[in-house]
């Protein structure tokens, strides 16, 4: 986000200082509730999280915490499950981000023209994005049910694409496929809305000029469309990557077979009841997140992206 222009800059120096301090007080007052909430429930937990990561923390708050030093980190970093989970997460993120972005762009380009029921169609596409996960998850669990789901019925009995019905919820590999398709289906509308908004601001004459020059569809896409949508593309990919990497809700509700990093952390904390170890996983993930935020900061413009 760009720093706003300071309107007082051109005025006299005394006036500027006076105005600034006056604003600072009232700004602080206006931001105080926000600052208190973020300090108390984001900053403090972050620090507390680092502290917990050095302890063995019993669920019962009356029992003493035992200092373990770096033992939690050692356990996590030598746990093959942690690396497997990290690998699954990276693959899930890569497929989801690429899939939802490409599909979103494709559909946005399809919509970038006048046709009847355009508004209605747009609303239908956004539906999966605005519906709560829990509702969608039930529909998908039913559709992909091993024995009486319509998808397996079509894949095996009707079309014969597959010989054997995949057990979508009981096998880690097919569960992974399911979770990924679900994420692409659910999140492509986000890319679609953003791309459509920018495509509609584009100058049609650029394409007409290119057509006169004899450019084909692909050349037009690479030379005109892509440069124009670049900032939006970068923003979408960055944000979607981060949000997918830490995805918990959608994966956990759909199947217990795919332990992406969010699910792995949750299970360590609340199924294994090993808070200390879960905290150390969080700290490791913090480091990854901050590295990404640091490198993406200048490129992503949160408020002005459409």
């Amino acid at each position: 986000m760009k720093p706003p222009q300071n309107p007082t800059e051109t005025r006299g120096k005394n006036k500027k200082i006076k105005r600034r301090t006056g604003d600072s007080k009232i700004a602080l007052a206006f931001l105080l509730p926000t600052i208190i909430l973020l300090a108390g429930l984001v900053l403090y937990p972050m620090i507390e999280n680092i502290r917990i990561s050095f302890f063995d923390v019993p669920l019962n708050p009356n029992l003493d915490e035992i200092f373990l030093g770096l033992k939690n980190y050692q356990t996590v970093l030598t746990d093959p499950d942690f690396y497997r989970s990290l690998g699954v997460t990276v693959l899930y993120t890569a497929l989801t981000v690429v899939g939802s972005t490409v599909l979103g762009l494709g559909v946005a380009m399809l919509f970038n023209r006048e046709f009847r029921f355009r508004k209605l169609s747009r609303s239908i596409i956004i539906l999966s994005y605005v519906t709560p996960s829990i509702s969608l998850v039930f529909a998908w669990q039913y559709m992909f049910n091993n024995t009486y789901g319509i998808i397996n019925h079509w894949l095996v009995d009707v079309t014969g694409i597959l010989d054997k019905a995949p057990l979508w919820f009981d096998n880690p590999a097919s569960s992974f496929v399911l979770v990924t398709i679900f994420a692409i289906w659910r999140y492509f509308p986000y890319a679609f809305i953003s791309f459509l908004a920018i495509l509609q601001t584009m100058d049609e004459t650029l394409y007409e000029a290119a057509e006169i020059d004899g450019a084909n569809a692909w050349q037009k896409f690479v030379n005109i469309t892509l440069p124009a949508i670049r900032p939006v593309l970068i923003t979408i990919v960055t944000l979607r990557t981060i949000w997918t990497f830490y995805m918990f809700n959608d994966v956990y509700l759909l199947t217990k077979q795919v332990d992406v990093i969010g699910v792995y952390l949750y299970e360590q904390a609340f199924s294994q009841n090993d808070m200390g170890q879960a905290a150390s996983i969080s700290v490791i993930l913090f480091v990854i997140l901050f590295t990404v935020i640091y490198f993406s900061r200048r490129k992503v413009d949160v408020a002005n992206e459409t």
Partner: protein
Amino acid sequence: MKRKRKNMLSRTLFYVLLVLILVISLFPFFIMLMTSLKPTNEAISYNPTILPEVVTLQHYQDVFNPALFPFLTYFKNSMIVSFLAAFISVFIGIFGAYAMSKLNFKFKSTMNSAFYTVYMFSGILLVVPLFKIISSLGLYNTRTSIIIVMIVQTLPTSIFMLKSYFDTIPKSIEEAAMIDGLTRVQIIFYITIPLAISGIASVFVYAFMVAWNDYLFASIFVSSSGYFTLTVGLNSLFATPDYVWGRMMAASLLTALPVVIMYALSERFIKKNLVEGGVKG
């Protein structure tokens, strides 16, 4: 002639692709609706039907029967949590966003970075310490715990969105009001809020949707089913004898309805999709 044929072809291709994508988008919703109208034996038949052979409204009656299904309790909890979280998030956010949009102060860029960082943050990274903090505050197993955490989760995005709406309000209007002797707080209530009301409504919808959709925090902060929200409650019924597909589908549709209606209404009132793309989800 050749051009005309090419046009026909590309038009046909366009409509084929359009119908395909619409079917893919809509299919699970269609299945949800159809299954909610089918009797149970038809819903679990090995030969799945698309349209119900027998239409029944039994599942909808069951969903609203408290003796059979605690749907109304969950629905009420979700409503309380989401409404209060969204309302407070927007209220606090209005003042924060006003400061970020209209005031000059020293630590502005620091605040901006802080919001930005939290905006990218995922709740999952803070579950462990937040669980401990909520427990030590004595808020474990209360709706308040979920409300507080949902306010914090939505606040940075609320402020970003509100700020971008406030930025469109010309400074001259405010300057005139200040000459008339209005204080900053009066300006917010008499000028900023009325002028940005449709934007504020869309921020409310955003925050409401986040809270309505939350499973993570609701599942760890609340243990008695009397306080369950829809996500936790419905998920807890999975694989129990109460798990009747038609009933779950009816419940799913009814769970989706409030947010879909709210979203549709907020879309209607907003002419430009100003911040839509920046909404976290």
